[in-house]
């Protein structure tokens, strides 16, 4: 099926700006775009005045529940949520059961993704066997099988020695280590960020400095080993400052964050709302503001959904016992666009953090509207709004920290290689 998107705004990659006009998709690839492409024969015309056509979102970080936690989410149910959210590529965390620490399991995830017909899944390989933090996984074989980088998912690589070895060994294969940046000892047992709120609520707390301590150490280890480190879901002003300075010094350091960390602060856990219990925890307002500033100045390389599916039994517990993590696929675009509406980011900046930048990081050709590029696309109306409601989200996972929130930016349609998969 050939499609002509007519009279829309689209993200022009050459100028990094929005252009008004048409985009033509033929045989699953972007054939042409420009101010007006006329009406070629045999095309489905999609006219959507006011809507924006962007590359399908590239999500740098999500857990999908499968294999091992299918009661929380399956790849199929995640694909449904992703299509609703305009996401066409997901880098999948390896801390499933079994852990993705074997080439055959890398193939399994890739194949399962292809089977959805709507989603490309790019597996992370485990940084250590079984994500146990003891011995290195087989980075060479895993990378050859398709692993995009190496991480222990929601667990930090705590040992300095092991982190040094991982960075050093991965560098030999040109691979990155992705760290959950949290000093393991300081974070142990913690359920909220340290501060007056956690103290009054009587919750075990994790100091914000636990993040900076880990980041400072790993930057130093990256320098020592010549390796490349990526810090996932960075949440604090102090850690972002360290990363900013490391980048200025030309070190191989990158990072991402997730919507809760620039949209919410620690007050969201009031009344012991376990859906707002995340790892790392929601921080103080000054940290939230620092994350917004780092999105703007380029310190942060990508916005990831950090999708962590949990079911009711994981969450309907006393706060300290509840599993951390929030569903994020359906809300990735909408919550990010809130930073455009409030003037913190331009639309092109926001979309680049969701498309071209994570695609570049992953080394894939997605994330652009370019002639000959695979037609992974999302068409959304930035003016229309919808309400996030736990229980009514697409997919299985309903544990959104944004429950009840009105967001602007409705996805009208999602296309995977020119095939409509949503809307």
């Amino acid at each position: 099926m050939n499609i002509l998107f007519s009279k829309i705004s689209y993200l022009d990659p050459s100028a990094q700006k929005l252009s008004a006009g048409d985009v033509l998709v033929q045989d699953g690839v972007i054939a042409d775009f420009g101010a007006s492409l006329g009406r070629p024969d045999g095309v489905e015309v999609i006219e959507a005045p006011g809507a924006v056509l962007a590359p399908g979102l590239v999500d740098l970080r999500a857990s999908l529940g499968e294999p091992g936690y299918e009661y929380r989410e399956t790849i199929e149910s995640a694909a449904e949520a992703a299509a609703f959210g305009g996401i066409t590529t997901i880098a999948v965390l390896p801390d499933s059961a079994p852990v993705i620490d074997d080439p055959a399991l890398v193939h399994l995830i890739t194949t399962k993704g292809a089977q959805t017909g709507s989603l490309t899944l790019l597996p992370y390989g485990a940084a250590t066997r079984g994500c146990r933090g003891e011995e290195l996984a087989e980075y060479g074989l895993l990378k050859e099988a398709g692993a995009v980088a190496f991480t222990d998912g929601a667990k930090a690589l705590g040992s300095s020695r092991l982190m040094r070895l991982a960075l050093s060994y991965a560098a030999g294969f040109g691979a990155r280590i992705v760290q959950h940046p949290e000093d393991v000892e300081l974070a142990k047992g913690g359920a909220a960020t340290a501060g007056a709120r956690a103290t009054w609520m009587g919750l075990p707390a994790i100091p914000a400095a636990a993040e900076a301590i880990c980041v400072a150490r790993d930057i130093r280890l990256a320098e020592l080993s010549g390796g490349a480190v990526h810090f996932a879901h960075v949440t604090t002003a102090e850690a972002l400052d360290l990363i900013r300075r490391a980048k200025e010094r030309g070190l191989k350091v990158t990072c991402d964050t997730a919507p809760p960390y620039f949209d919410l602060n620690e007050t969201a856990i009031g009344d012991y709302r376990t859906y707002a219990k995340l790892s790392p925890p929601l921080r103080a307002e000054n940290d939230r503001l620092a994350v917004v500033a780092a999105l703007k100045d380029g310190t942060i390389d990508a916005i990831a959904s950090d999708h962590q599916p949990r079911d009711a039994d994981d969450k309907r517990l006393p706060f300290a016992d509840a599993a951390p993590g929030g569903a994020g696929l359906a809300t990735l675009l909408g919550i990010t666009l809130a930073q455009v509406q409030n003037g913190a980011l331009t639309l092109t900046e926001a979309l680049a953090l969701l498309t071209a930048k994570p695609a570049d990081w992953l080394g894939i050709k997605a994330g652009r509207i370019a002639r000959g590029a695979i037609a992974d696309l999302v068409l959304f109306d930035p003016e229309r709004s919808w309400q996030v409601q736990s229980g009514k989200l697409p997919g299985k996972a309903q544990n959104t920290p944004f429950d009840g929130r009105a967001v602007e930016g409705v996805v009208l349609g999602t296309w995977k290689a020119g095939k409509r998969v949503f809307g």
Partner: protein
Amino acid sequence: MASFKHLLGIEGLNPVAVTNLLDLAESYALLNRSGKTQRDLLRGRTLINLFFEDSTRTRTSFELAGRRLGADVVNMSVATSSVTKGETLLDTAATLNAMNCDLLVVRHNRSGAPALLAQKVGASVINAGDGTHEHPTQALLDALTMRRNKGRISGLTVAICGDVAHSRVARSNILLLTMMGNFVRLIGPPTLVPGNIATSGVEVFHDMKKGLEGADIVMMLRLQKERMTGGLIPSMREFFAYYGLDRKKLSYAKPDALVLHPGPMNRGVEIDSAVADDAVRSRITEQVEMGVAVRMAVLDWLARGGVV
């Protein structure tokens, strides 16, 4: 006019509600001393003591309070040793709903657990201590004891000493005492007194001599043995030397300063027996007596709709 369905904490109460509760409790204290009862007030109502954590003292106090007002009292102790304690909590809530319980007294080792239950049960939930969060009836009985002895519950200087970080008694007391216009001093080693707990009307000290100066009330907190194994303090001996209340340290407070302790006491750890058993200075047994009166007041108040 406001009405309260539950008593989950001092937070959310206002000075009028606190004063009314203390007045009501005072009348029950007199009634209890007279040996009379009011068994018609809660006749036909069911009170369930749901304790996920051992506590003979608080449970007995609520039990007596309920019985003296004529309620049918049932005690339920739930073991928390298994990892499934969370499921037990909500399963228990469903069971209690089916039994049509009116008043549910909950103690749990996790902060926020009574609040979670309150969302799921039809009964009025009374927090009898949740994790390191709140213990509102303890703060009320402490306030009643102070008011009876000092003639007021405002303008007092109250020193709360010891393991403030892990104390729900301390949190509820700080909230109540500052709300009523008292001055609160928190005294303990930095590892046991979170700096960020200081709000308006609250000062933190790490030295008993400075902290106790001019205090009207010295409230000692229980020190759990886990604080040693957790490395927060090096030894009981050192803790007692610097923060244990003995006659010498008590002499730093006002000459008529009174000593409180929520119990059970660790004699020789946070308090010396000579002080604990001093009939002139210690009000520890009176606290226990007031505990029953305060709990009668809370049960009576909530059963009548919690109107302020």
